[in-house]
Each structure stands twice: as structure tokens, then as C-alpha cells.
């Protein structure tokens, strides 16, 4: 049990516990904060997997972007005067069945499979090879992603700004 293992277990447990908090929390604000720690835990797992660029991207985009968007959504859709904690829960039994069956199958398959032993490369920076790949092998998806972001930007603005007066 070396430091790598200990670090892995700490961050894996942090991630899983935070995800449990996201899914089972009654209060939507607590769920959003649990999501913050889940994202941080996943970023730490990226670091352990020698993906430094992705870890930074994860923190910048998920924590700095998506989580702020989610908190804004919570703020704008929860009425301020009657702070109703949306505790609605649908169809627990089929959900437990489906999620449990899938989790059991996945974990069973993953733990019984004999993965080929990997010769681990030493840690090295990944920003340069990722950038090189984006400009060579992945240049078409890269451009498509930029178009998608533009479309999503304009579409989100148009959808969100539709005036109230326009409804019948």
C-alpha cells in the first residue's frame, strides 16, 4: 500500500460519496455542492491517470462553467418566497432494479476480466500531444465541436430569451 494507492482510495471514496450525495440529497442546493466535490474527485483521478491537461480542463469547465450554470438554474427556478425543497421522487423500485443490475453486471465483468498487464509510461505532460492530435488526426471533430458550441450558444440565448408576452 503505497502513497499512490492511498491517494486513489481517498479520492475514489470522495467521488463516490459525493455522487451518492448528489443522487440521494433531498435539497437541490446540497446536491449541487455535492456535485462540486464529485467533479473535484474526478479531476484528482485524472491526475492519478497522468492526464494533467484534462484535470485542469475538468476543473475549469465543470466547476467553473457547468456548475455555475446549474446553480444559476437552481436560483432562477426555485421560488424565493416559498422555498420548496423539491423532494419529488419517481419510480424508485424500477430505478433501483435497473441501476443495481447494471452496476452488478459491470462490476462483476470488470473484476473477473483478466486485463492485459500494462507497461506504464512515466508521467509526462499531455497538453502538447493533445494539441498536436487536435490539429492533425482530430481536426474535423475539432471544427465540428466549434460549430456545435456556436450553435448551442445562439440556440440557448434564443430559447432563454423568448418573451413572456408571446405566450397566448
Amino acid at each position, binding site marked *: 500500500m503505497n502513497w499512490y494507492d492511498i491517494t*486513489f482510495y481517498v479520492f475514489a471514496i470522495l*467521488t*463516490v460519496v459525493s*455522487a*451518492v450525495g*448528489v*443522487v440521494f440529497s433531498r435539497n*437541490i442546493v446540497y446536491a449541487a455542492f455535492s456535485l462540486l466535490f*464529485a*467533479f473535484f474527485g*474526478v479531476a484528482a*483521478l*485524472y491526475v492519478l*491517470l497522468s*492526464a494533467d491537461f*484534462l484535470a485542469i*480542463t*475538468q476543473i475549469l*469547465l*465543470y466547476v467553473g462553467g*457547468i456548475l455555475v450554470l*446549474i446553480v444559476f*438554474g437552481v436560483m432562477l*427556478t426555485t421560488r424565493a418566497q416559498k422555498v420548496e425543497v*423539491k423532494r*419529488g421522487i*419517481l*419510480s424508485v423500485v424500477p*430505478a433501483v432494479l*435497473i*441501476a*443495481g443490475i*447494471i*452496476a452488478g453486471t*459491470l*462490476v462483476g465483468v*470488470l*473484476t473477473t*476480466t483478466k486485463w492485459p498487464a*500494462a*507497461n*506504464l509510461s512515466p508521467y509526462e505532460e499531455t497538453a502538447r*500531444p*493533445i494539441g498536436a*492530435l*487536435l490539429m492533425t*488526426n*482530430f481536426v474535423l*471533430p475539432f471544427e465540428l*465541436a466549434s460549430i*456545435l*458550441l456556436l450553435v*448551442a450558444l445562439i*440556440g*440557448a*440565448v434564443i*430559447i*432563454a430569451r*423568448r418573451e413572456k408576452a408571446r*405566450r397566448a
Partner: protein
Amino acid sequence: MAVHIGLTQFLVVSAILFSLGLYGVITRKNAIMVLMGIELILNAANINFVAFTRYGAMNISGQVVAVFVIILAAAEAAVLLAIVLNIFQQLNTVNVDEVDNLKN
């Protein structure tokens, strides 16, 4: 715990995260909570990509795909929140089971 950390442990964490996200997507009423479940699922997929990049004998392409997944997640979150805001303005609710105008 003499087991050394390898590919399996990362994949198990990812599988647990995926199942939790799936459970959240199915059970939650609030559309924003459903979005949080989707984000958990996408994160689980990303852990798989990065883990196979490290432990599989291949180059760094998996991490590039993970970058694209993050981009898609951001775009999807923006559009979904715009839709949710619009639904909230029109119907005064964000619960996915009460938005059933097309049913009848």
C-alpha cells in the same frame, strides 16, 4: 488490501458513478437534478476513456475524445438550462412529470 491499484479499480469507480447517475436520472423529478445525473454519467465515461488511455497500449487519443465529451457536456448543459428556464416561465414548474402538455 494487498491489491495494487490498476485498471480495474478505476473502471469500478467509473461503473459505480455511472449507476448512481442513472439512478438519479430515473428517479429525480426536478429537471436540473436530472441534468446533474447526466453529468455524473458523462464523468464516468470520461474516467473510462482516460483509464484506458493510461493502461491500454495506445497513444493519447482517449484523452482527446474525453476533451470532446467535456465540450459536449458544456453545450448540452447550456441548452438544457435554457429550455428549463423557458419551461419555468411558461408553465411555472420544472418537474419533468408535470410537463405533459403534449399528452392529450
